[in-house]
Each structure stands twice: as structure tokens, then as C-alpha cells.
């Protein structure tokens, strides 16, 4: 046992598994209460109270919801492709979870810091399409298929702009490691006498806006929730799903929201950097910024109506894509120009 324990490979795997389990459990809790927050915020935005019956302030509502999901009847559509039908919900959750492995939560708190962290995030978000496409196809239902096809088209279109928007901070930091990008934002800048934090959002406002818009589209959140537009497509790609399989899609959507907000914080909002707190507690800043962005997600959902399909495609290809390319060009030119020769 002692020999095994002193093996560096074993230690590496052991601590990685410990971190993964801790983050997974924390995320499950965060997601269930994020849903509660979403319902509460939605309620107050519409002059209602939101859930308030189960427990004080309705705080036990997520527990009740999850229990209900587990006890629901499992329904499998006839002539559906069984294997793919069962695999698709898992695929909705896995990419989001893998992304968390590279998220720099704090100076000392991260599962792993690899030198291609940003690329890993892009790879995982490009794999996220499969869950929805496969769910739509394997259900053998018109609504599901149309929802799945729509979502493939939407995610392929917006992935490009998202990838290009991340190049701005990348050029400024000069590294693909997310921890490196956060560290590049740790110094303070002085505009005249006023000190401002050196977050990349101040240098890359266009990229930040593009990234957040594409983040909404990639997570299928309103106003980009066409794949599940209930007025035309019933439930969209998850029409035929029930019980905990449907729950996994829901879980995947919220985990994706958290992951993408975390990436946005690391790329643009200075990650864990912030005043007052000592090093080990800097993770609080990260969490606070992520929650601010998540509130933004919810706010937007309950404020804007859904886009029409052609508007969606026009916005993606004719506005966001050219804008992100111009942004890269300008950033590159300015960096080259300011470089000491």
C-alpha cells in the first residue's frame, strides 16, 4: 500500500479523482439551486413570487423537483434507435463536465492546468452538438428531428464566432492555458490617476459581447432557444424524453451555462483576480463573477423574445462572424504596432 501511495502516477490519479468528485457534487448542488434562482427571478420579473410552498422561501423546491423526476415513468418512443436514444442524454452532460477540468477556479483551486485549456473548451463545446442532434434523430419523431436539425445548424454557425472571439484575449495573453490567461490579467492599469483592473474586457469589449451572445446560442438559451421552440416544435429535440433522461438534458443545459460563464470570466473578467481577499480565498471572486454572468443569462431569458430562424442565421453569419474577424485583425495590428522592435 505504501509503495502504491508513493507512486507519483497513482498520486496524480488519486488527487484528480478527489477533485473531480468534489466539483461534480458541488455542481449538482449549484445546478439545482440555479434552477430555483431562475424560477424565483422569473417570478419576480413578472410580478409573481415564484416557488414558495416547499420549505422556507421555497428553498426545498429543487429537492422536490429532483425526487419527482426520479419517480416519473420512463417512456421510450416506438421505433426509436435504442442505443443512441440512451447515449444522447449522457453526451449532453459530459462535455460540460470535461470543461470544468480546466476551469481556473482560484490560484490554488483547479483540477488541472494544461497548456491547451482554451482549445479543450472549444473542442468540448463543438462536441456538445451531438447530444441534441442525436437525441432529435433517435427519437423517431418529426418534432424531435426538426429540433435536432435546427440545433446543429445553430451551433455550427455560432461556434465559429465563439472560437474567433476567444482569439482576442488569446493574442493579449499569448498563451492557450486558461490559468496563464487569468494571470495575464492580474496587473492594475492606470488611466490618469484612476486605477482600473487589467481585465481583458476593457481591451476586448467587442469580443466580450460576441462571446456572450454566442454563449447564449451555444447553450440554447432564450432568445436563441429555437431548437426547443415550444410554439412550433412542442418540446423540440427532447419531446420524446421523460424522467431522468429529460433531467439530464436539463442538467446539461445548466452545467453548460455555468461552464461557459466560467470561461467568460477567465477570458474577459480577470478570473479570480480581485481586491481584499488573500490568495486561498480568491476563488470567491471567481464564483461571484460567474454568478453575475449567470444572473445575466436569466435576465436576458425573461426579457427578450425568441429570434426568428432567418434572423438567427443573419445575426450569426453576417454580423457576428465579420465583427469577430475585424476584431482579431485590429487586435493583432495594435499588438504588432505597440511591440518594441
Amino acid at each position, binding site marked *: 500500500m505504501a509503495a502504491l501511495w508513493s507512486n507519483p502516477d497513482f498520486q496524480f490519479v488519486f488527487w484528480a479523482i478527489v477533485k473531480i468528485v468534489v466539483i461534480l457534487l458541488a455542481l449538482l448542488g449549484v445546478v439545482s439551486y440555479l434552477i430555483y434562482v431562475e424560477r424565483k427571478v422569473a417570478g419576480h420579473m413578472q410580478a409573481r413570487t415564484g416557488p414558495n410552498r416547499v420549505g422556507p422561501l421555497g428553498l426545498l423546491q429543487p429537492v422536490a423537483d429532483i425526487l419527482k423526476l426520479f419517480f416519473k415513468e420512463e417512456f421510450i418512443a416506438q421505433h426509436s434507435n435504442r442505443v*443512441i436514444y440512451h447515449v444522447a442524454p449522457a453526451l449532453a452532460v459530459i462535455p460540460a463536465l470535461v470543461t470544468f477540468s480546466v476551469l481556473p477556479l482560484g490560484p490554488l483551486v483547479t483540477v488541472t492546468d494544461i497548456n*491547451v485549456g482554451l482549445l479543450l473548451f472549444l473542442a468540448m463545446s463543438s462536441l456538445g452538438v451531438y447530444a441534441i442532434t442525436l437525441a432529435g434523430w433517435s427519437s423517431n419523431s418529426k418534432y424531435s428531428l426538426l429540433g435536432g436539425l435546427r440545433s446543429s445548424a445553430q451551433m455550427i454557425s455560432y461556434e465559429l464566432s465563439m472560437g474567433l472571439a476567444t482569439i482576442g484575449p488569446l493574442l493579449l495573453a499569448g498563451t492557450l492555458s486558461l490559468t496563464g490567461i487569468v494571470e495575464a490579467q492580474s496587473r492594475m492599469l492606470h488611466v490618469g490617476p484612476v486605477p482600473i483592473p487589467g481585465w481583458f474586457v476593457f481591451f476586448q469589449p467587442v469580443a466580450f459581447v460576441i462571446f456572450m451572445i454566442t454563449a447564449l446560442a451555444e447553450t440554447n438559451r432564450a432568445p436563441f432557444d429555437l431548437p426547443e421552440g415550444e410554439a412550433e416544435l412542442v418540446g423540440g429535440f427532447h419531446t420524446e424524453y421523460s424522467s431522468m433522461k429529460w433531467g439530464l438534458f436539463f442538467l446539461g443545459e445548466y452545467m453548460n451555462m455555468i461552464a461557459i460563464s466560467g470561461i467568460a470570466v477567465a477570458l474577459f473578467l480577470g478570473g479570480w483576480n480581485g481586491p481584499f481577499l488573500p490568495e486561498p480565498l480568491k476563488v470567491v471572486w471567481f464564483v461571484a463573477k460567474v454568478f453575475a454572468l449567470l444572473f445575466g443569462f436569466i435576465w436576458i431569458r425573461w426579457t427578450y423574445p425568441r429570434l426568428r430562424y432567418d434572423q438567427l442565421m443573419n445575426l450569426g453569419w453576417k454580423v457576428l462572424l465579420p465583427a469577430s474577424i475585424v476584431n482579431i485583425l485590429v487586435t493583432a495590428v495594435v499588438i504588432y504596432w505597440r511591440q518594441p522592435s
Partner: protein
Amino acid sequence: VTLVQALFLVFGALLVVSSLMVVVHRNPVTSALFLVLGFVSLGAIYLTLRAEFLGMVQIIVYAGAIMVLFLFVLMYLNLQHDVETGVQIALRRGLGWLMGVLVLGLGALLLGRGWASGPASAAAPATHGNAHEVGIALYSRYLFPFEITSMVLLVAMVGAIVITRGRRAPGAPPGAAGDEGGAS
């Protein structure tokens, strides 16, 4: 075996099995999914060889972009089974066997002559395969092939646009034919 070698073996086995399933499986959509699995395990093999950039790009480009489009088309056509018969399928089978034998022979030759260094025997330098190295190589030594490739892609893109626009009837106003729907 070290951890990296064990991972290499696992992903290598996964790659071989999923590649076989691509050929053997009757349902085209399932075949395509096994191809995705193959690409992902190939990306993982690149990681074990310390080519992180290549591994990630492998997943982004092949598994994330190209195969999604493949799958898109397969689902749209809704091919449940391979329906072609007769001469065409015989021709395809013959070509397939020929290619398979050629690839096997090539692999045996490479292994026999010791050209393939084998799994993780020679440790690559720590920076090898990183974005920096790849970028420097692309923009200096391989600039011309790189630019030619981009031209080829541009030509393909223009061709695709021309085909999807359809042929306009003589005298018809611009954008009258094949102009429904957005770019999807």
C-alpha cells in the same frame, strides 16, 4: 508500463475497434458515430505523444465540425440501411479490399523496417507539438503549402455557394432561383 503507455494502449485499442465498427456496422449513422469515437481516441493518442495542440485540433476539426456535417446529411437523407446492390456494391467491395490489403501491407512494411518508432518510445521534446511551434512552422517553413491549402478551401467554398444558389433562368431578377432559406 507507465501511466502514459497504458493510456496509449487503451486509446489505441479503442481506435482500432471503433474503426473496424465504422466499416462493419450496417447503419450509416452508427458508423459515423464510431468514426467520431475513432477521431476522439486519435486525439487522445496525440495527447499521450505530447502533441497537445494537434490532439485538440483533431477533436475540434474532425469530431466537432466535419463529422457533425456528415451526420447532418446522413440524418437528413435518413438512410437506415445500405440499399445499393449489384455492380456498384461489388465494385466498392473490391476497391475496399484492395485498399485494405495495401494499407495492411504498408503498415507491415513500416513496422518491419523500424520506421515507425512505436508507442511513446522516443519522448518528444516538451515544447514539441505546442501551438507556438506549430505556428512558427506554418508561417515560415510551410508558408507556401499553407497558403495553397487556404486557396483550395476558398475555391471549394465558392463552388459550394455556386451550386446551392442554383441556375438562374435567363432574364430572371437576381436571387430569384434557389434563394429560399438562410445559410445553414
